[in-house]
């Protein structure tokens, strides 16, 4: 798994590539939590290039969402791959996250 982070105005975008499983999810959670700690609270998680995600990845996302909501921010999901969409649906999380079909739409939503 790789993560790449950049800013567009007040929005912080984290793009994830590869596998998000129990081996790599802690790294994703750390990357996201560091942004929240740095008071970056308008987050977009771009999951277009995620080839695989298990419940460990969902736990990292939910944990970050709870942390950022506490400081009146949000974690919005952009362009999830089919596999990510399926695990979100299976976990009942499709309605918990704001999900956008493109990164641009997710950034503009703030």
């Amino acid at each position, binding site marked *: 798994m790789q993560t790449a982070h950049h800013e567009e105005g007040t929005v912080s975008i984290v793009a994830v590539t590869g*596998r998000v*499983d*129990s*081996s790599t999810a802690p790294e994703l959670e750390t990357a996201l939590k560091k942004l929240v700690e740095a008071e970056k609270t308008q987050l977009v998680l771009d999951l277009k290039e995620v080839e*695989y995600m*298990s*419940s*460990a990845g*969902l*736990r990292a996302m*939910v944990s970050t*969402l*709870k942390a950022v*909501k506490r400081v009146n921010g949000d974690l919005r999901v952009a362009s999830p791959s089919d*596999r990510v969409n*399926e*695990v979100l649906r*299976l*976990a*009942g*999380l499709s*309605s*918990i996250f704001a999900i956008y079909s493109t990164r641009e739409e997710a950034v503009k939503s703030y």
Partner: protein
Amino acid sequence: MVRTLTVPGRYDQLEAVCQFVTVAAELAELGEKEIAHCQLAVDEACTNVIEHGYGGENVGNIEVRCEVAPGILTITIHDSARPFDPAHAPAPNVAPTSLDDLRIGGLGLHFMRQVMDEVQFSYENGGNTLKLVKQKK
């Protein structure tokens, strides 16, 4: 045809286990989505063994056995951890109405039951055996 892979109980072995199961699923002529379901189920099963069974990494091994037949893959996962009783596993809330309502624990077992045709736990030979079956639709 039967293939077996034994790995140390570590999260960095999950990808190798998924690849092993993928090859077996392809030999069983399962479809792309069915193969993805096998990968997810096996990943969640092995993660549960490491996290809840062994209580951490590098405590014990995990043996993954794939029995390949045309249109059907039977995966058996064996560990030497303490007995696991699925009846006592926490159930996730998969219809949360709010973030406060959300309980994320127990998703692994829920995923296995959602995506596989058969999920069966037993305790034998000093360890847990989980049988997962996926059939081509």
